[in-house]
């Protein structure tokens, strides 16, 4: 008896199915209703790119120098590294020598990376 009540049959999931149908149905109904009820106005100017009221010039999808990307991504990397140093600085005394050595390892790994990108010439602009 006890074992039998623990057996779950697919029919037990029917309420969930009904709930999903209602949830999806509600979303669809509301989306259709808002499209029918809401006023619309279409024009060439309306569908233009929004550039703060100024006429858009050219295409936004054009190739630009990879150097910008490289510098930006490297900046983020080293910026985040500095963020890690703040909690360390706050807890400097509590963490003691252990924390100091740990931070030195972390920083030396980062400096290794820095050395690598300098040698690779990633920071060379010209």
């Amino acid at each position, binding site marked *: 008896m006890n074992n039998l009540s623990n057996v779950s049959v697919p029919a037990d999931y029917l309420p969930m199915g009904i709930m999903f149908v209602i949830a999806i149905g509600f979303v669809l109904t509301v989306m259709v209703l808002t499209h029918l*009820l*809401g*006023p*619309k*106005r*279409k*024009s*060439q*100017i*309306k569908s*233009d790119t*929004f550039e*703060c*009221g*100024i*006429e858009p010039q050219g295409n936004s999808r054009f190739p630009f120098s990879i150097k910008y990307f490289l510098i930006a991504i490297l900046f983020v990397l080293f910026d985040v590294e500095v963020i890690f140093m703040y909690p360390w600085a706050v807890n400097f005394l509590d963490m003691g020598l252990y924390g100091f050595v740990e931070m030195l390892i972390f920083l030396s790994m980062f400096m290794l990376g820095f050395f690598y990108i300098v040698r690779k010439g990633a920071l060379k602009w010209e």
Partner: protein
Amino acid sequence: MSNITKAPPGYEGPGFFATKIDAVVGLARKNSLWPLPFATSCCGIEFMSTMASHYDLARFGSERLSFSPRQADLLMVMGTIAKKMGPVLRQVYEQMAEPRWVLSVGACASSGGIFDTYSVLQGIDRIIPVDVYVPGCPPRPEQILDGVMRIQELVASESIRRRDSAEYKELMASYGMQ
């Protein structure tokens, strides 16, 4: 909570409430206007204090400024609009989604103000339709709030068919908009 809005007039019974969709839509729109601030001069400074904690436009459900016209309901034009700025303002207005309202804040936006010169637009209603004008040079935040409340009255009482009506289309056509 003393500032919960009252229910619109309707038919009430045990467990249900029936009213016009106009009233419900108006109530919802009225209390969630997203303004697009078009601040060009000193009225913009007054607007900043209107938004800040002292006057707090959030009390009227308008704390969410939209800096894209796509999501804005209310265009607040605050400040002198030079003739060169005219087309920009017009483009921003045209890119707003319907329904949209325009609040002209201050003497300059409403009429050109003291700048009766060759370079200044003598009132923004020359290029876009305006719903409410706020006088003052610059108006105090209380006056801007009053203007927003007047807009809310318009929003609450607007029929949901107004934007499809012939009069409205004629109004748009008179400004040269589709």
